[in-house]
């Protein structure tokens, strides 16, 4: 083995493409040199169809739901129908009479939400499993419940937990959090943070103006099209699992721990996963159940949550109540911002929304207090940019209110608080695309329409995005080049829709001078080297630099073989399309591969540590144009312009798709999605997809994704993520556009027709008063 070489200090250019500046960075030994501005690229950063698309459009992509085996048992979970109850007894005696049924009873004395699991069983058919569930008799003693955020905050509210609750963290969560916090009644917190002055009172007293605003957001469920599911099969003392997961390695680690197995005896695969959005990081109780039942039965078990269970118990984005007070100067710049948030993740924690007010704009003095409130509802968990859509909706409403009070353009107020050059370029680009200069004329037209009694109003709104460059360390990649010239690349990362098979192939193809279609990617299994979880916008940034390093190492080895054929020095050999070249001569890829000394060339690549320096934030801005019918209350989003940066995009089609998807989820959140709960029984009335409304094809507006390329100077491909930032500002931009259309500040989502009509009525009252 070669001696480890020292890292190289290299000068590179970083910043906005076209406006880069020189910077010295430390590149780890063995890592590929960072891509340079102006360096021609054939396929890296291109638009092209996703490589696994042909399996998806033909139904040949196999998901956890689709796993079939001889002798398969079907798992089901018995869940509490009550919001809060003591379990007096569980009678499972009838199960003994049903052939082929195995079950696993949880040691549990109390259920705290509708959907809280009690027992899991497996039977030879779905119908038999369903019937077996009905054969179990549970005797409950109903306890008082609370299912409403503000009710749960009251002093005499029923207690969800008698004892303090610790916080869990997953790969999709925003950084920070954890640690001990006070817990009083159902309120855990506050967690205090901030920057600048500790005491804001003087700043509020000295301000040109002060805005106070309360903004509320509702719970949103992930509603992945593939419900949570797991297949488990024991072969001897080894566990084989096919999981619907955002992280095969985290599922493996968790199951290894549960079953006291070494990691090499737990095998998890997830080639295709039907969405996750933050809700599929761990093995899940369903995953543990499937493995336990399979062990008991000595047969494979597949456990698929039905849609009702999925909506009740498989995670959600917590709701929020954000109380804000901001002091500002006449130019719209904020001098102090006080922010208190409360939110319920049901029986879980993690409802904080305060990151945005600290990180999105350059407010000099910020005081944040975040509290979790427990309710008797299914646990919240990470959901695409945890806390950020909520916090953005809140902060951006305040900025629009400041603009309204100062009769300033809302965009001018943003710019007065936003010194970041990338973001400023994005504001400028987006404003041009949406034609923001129409805004004041639209205001006048809306007043005219109101005076004439016409129903339609048109509004424009904008909001900023913020997220973070988060790298999950440890990714490794193997590249194999065979003597016939074929290429394989291995990494365990799962495919949940982000397009990892395509980004991996594109990166390898760029380095080796090949077509991405000719690179065989092997993914979605713990049998391959470690890959990151898919979440938190960490996947591409954690993985792609390692992919490039592995391919770069292969290219260097092959260049050494090509050099004598070209009569050139190894260092002069360059990779072209299907060739190696030097001094005007070329040799073909195949002829070089044929000269490999062994049967196959194997190289590896590691994810080197990020280079130092540069802002760790990801930015972005979005602009929305809406039409509101004040007679029906119906909002039509006509257009969303989404300007984002994600370093250098690896595969532009995929980035566009992430942006479009993030925008649509944001619109769906702003306008349609709402969990309805019967307060008396504590039951969710719409745990389904017919009454829990998510956006459909008819509701999708024109979306214009625009990417600003940035040489981040953090890794060898300048890669960053995009999944979270794409959804952070959408709901805020849409709501601000609606407020503009109506001339009334909307402070609660979803903005249903009823809320629109109420807002219109409130304005009428104001005008007549």
């Amino acid at each position, binding site marked *: 083995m070669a001696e480890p070489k020292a890292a190289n200090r290299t000068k590179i250019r970083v910043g906005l493409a076209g406006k880069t500046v020189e910077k010295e960075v430390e590149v780890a030994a063995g890592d590929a040199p960072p891509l340079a501005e102006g360096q021609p690229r054939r396929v890296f950063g291109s638009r092209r169809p996703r490589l696994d698309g042909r399996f998806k459009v033909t139904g040949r992509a196999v998901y956890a739901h689709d796993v079939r085996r001889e002798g398969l048992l079907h798992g089901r979970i018995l869940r509490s129908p009550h919001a809060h109850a003591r379990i007096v007894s569980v009678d499972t005696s009838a199960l003994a009479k049903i052939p082929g049924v195995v079950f696993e009873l949880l040691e549990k004395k109390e259920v705290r939400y509708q959907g809280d699991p009690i027992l899991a069983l497996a039977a030879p058919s779905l119908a038999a499993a369903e019937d077996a569930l009905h054969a179990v008799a549970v005797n409950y003693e109903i306890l008082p419940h609370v299912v409403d955020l503000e009710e749960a905050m009251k002093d005499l509210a029923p207690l969800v937990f008698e004892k303090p609750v610790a916080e869990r963290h997953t790969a999709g969560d925003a950084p920070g959090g954890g640690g001990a916090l006070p817990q009083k009644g159902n309120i855990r917190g506050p967690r205090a943070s901030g920057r600048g002055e500790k005491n804001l009172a003087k700043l509020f007293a000295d301000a040109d103006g002060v805005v106070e605003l309360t903004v509320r957001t509702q719970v949103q469920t992930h509603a992945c099209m593939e419900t949570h599911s797991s297949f488990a099969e024991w072969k001897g003392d080894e566990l084989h699992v096919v999981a619907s997961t955002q992280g095969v390695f985290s599922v493996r680690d968790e199951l290894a721990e549960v079953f006291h197995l070494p990691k090499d005896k737990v095998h998890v695969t997830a080639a295709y996963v039907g969405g996750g959005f933050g809700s599929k990081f761990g093995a899940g109780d369903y995953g543990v159940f499937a493995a336990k039942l399979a062990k008991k039965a000595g047969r494979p078990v597949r456990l698929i949550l039905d849609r009702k269970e999925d909506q009740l118990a498989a995670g959600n984005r917590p709701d929020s109540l954000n109380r804000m007070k901001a002091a500002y100067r006449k130019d719209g710049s904020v001098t102090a911002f006080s922010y208190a948030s409360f939110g319920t993740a049901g029986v879980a924690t993690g409802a904080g929304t305060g990151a945005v007010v600290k990180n999105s704009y350059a407010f000099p003095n910020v005081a944040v207090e975040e509290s979790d409130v427990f309710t008797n509802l299914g646990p919240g968990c990470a959901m695409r940019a945890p806390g950020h859509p909520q916090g953005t909706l809140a902060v951006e409403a305040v900025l629009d209110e400041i603009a309204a009070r100062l009769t300033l353009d809302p965009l001018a107020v943003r710019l007065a608080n936003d010194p970041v050059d990338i973001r400023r370029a994005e504001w400028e680009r987006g404003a041009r695309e949406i034609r923001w200069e129409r805004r004041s004329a639209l205001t006048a037209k809306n007043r005219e329409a109101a005076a004439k009694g016409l129903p339609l109003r048109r509004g424009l709104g904008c909001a900023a995005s913020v997220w973070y460059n988060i790298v999950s360390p440890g990714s490794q990649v193997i590249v194999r080049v065979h003597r016939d010239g074929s290429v394989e690349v291995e990494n365990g990362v799962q495919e949940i829709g982000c397009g990892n098979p395509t980004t991996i192939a594109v990166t390898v193809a760029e380095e080796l001078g090949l077509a991405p279609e000719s690179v065989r990617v092997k993914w979605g299994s713990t049998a391959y080297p470690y890959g990151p979880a898919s979440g938190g916008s960490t996947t591409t940034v954690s993985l792609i630099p390692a992919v490039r390093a592995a391919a770069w190492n292969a290219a260097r080895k092959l260049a050494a073989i090509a050099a004598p054929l070209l009569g050139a020095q190894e260092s002069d050999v360059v990779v072209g399309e299907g060739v190696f070249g030097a001094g005007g001569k070329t040799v073909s890829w195949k002829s070089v591969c044929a000269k490999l000394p062994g049967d196959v060339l194997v190289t590896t690549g590691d994810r080197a540590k990020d280079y130092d320096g540069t802002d760790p934030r990801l930015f972005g801005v979005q602009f929305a144009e809406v039409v509101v019918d004040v007679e029906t209350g119906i909002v039509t989003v006509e257009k969303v312009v989404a300007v984002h940066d994600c370093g250098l995009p690896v595969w532009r089609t995929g980035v566009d798709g992430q942006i479009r998807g993030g925008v649509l989820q944001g619109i769906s959140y702003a306008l349609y999605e709402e969990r309805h709960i019967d307060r008396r029984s504590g039951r969710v009335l719409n745990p389904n997809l017919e009454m829990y409304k998510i956006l459909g094809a*008819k509701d999708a507006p024109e979306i214009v994704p625009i990417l600003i390329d940035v040489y981040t100077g953090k890794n060898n491909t300048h890669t960053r993520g995009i999944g979270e930032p794409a959804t952070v500002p959408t709901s805020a931009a849409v709501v601000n556009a609606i407020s503009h259309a109506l001339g009334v500040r909307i402070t609660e989502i979803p903005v249903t027709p009823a809320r629109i009509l109420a807002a219109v009525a409130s304005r009428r009252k104001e005008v007549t008063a």
Partner: protein
Amino acid sequence: MTNGSRGVTRRGLLKGLATTAVAGAASGASALADDRKRPGEGTITVTVNGTPRPGVFAPRTTLAEALRETWGLTGTKIGCDRGACGACTVLLDGLAVNSCMTLVHDADGRNVTTIEGLGAPDALSPLQRAFVEADGMQCGFCTPGMVVSAEALRRRTPDPKPEEVRAALAGNLCRCGAYTGAIAACAGDRTGGSHG
């Protein structure tokens, strides 16, 4: 259709009722004619992608379940099992139906086309190719249903208007939000989605 015997659950009954409505709409009077086997009586035969598939099924078995569990055609997905998401869409005698809301007994003697019947990874149908080229998907779970709905539209309306495309896909939920690509693919615009 359902006979109130021990095996019939409330959910099964609801499904049966809803299926009657779907089948009635799809095939008119024939669904009401009493010339087919009653549920639970002997073997039924469903022609799936051109191949006759015999089987014996419990009355409550849905077409989706039969396709996936008995015949191994797992390209048809079950997202909600309640007719709300469209992931299970198949063609029943050429019309798009939710196979989770269709009892397999109601497909007896009829033709079913699933996603597997439209093309294969190395032999994509023109519409499947259009979905790939316009990137009308992300995770891909809703995609088979989406493609089948689009296929049903294109068979009856070869050159659909944009509003017809959106209406045809309105019953297919996509949580990733890949609608714009899917709409472009279904409309025959191969570059109007993510490549635009």
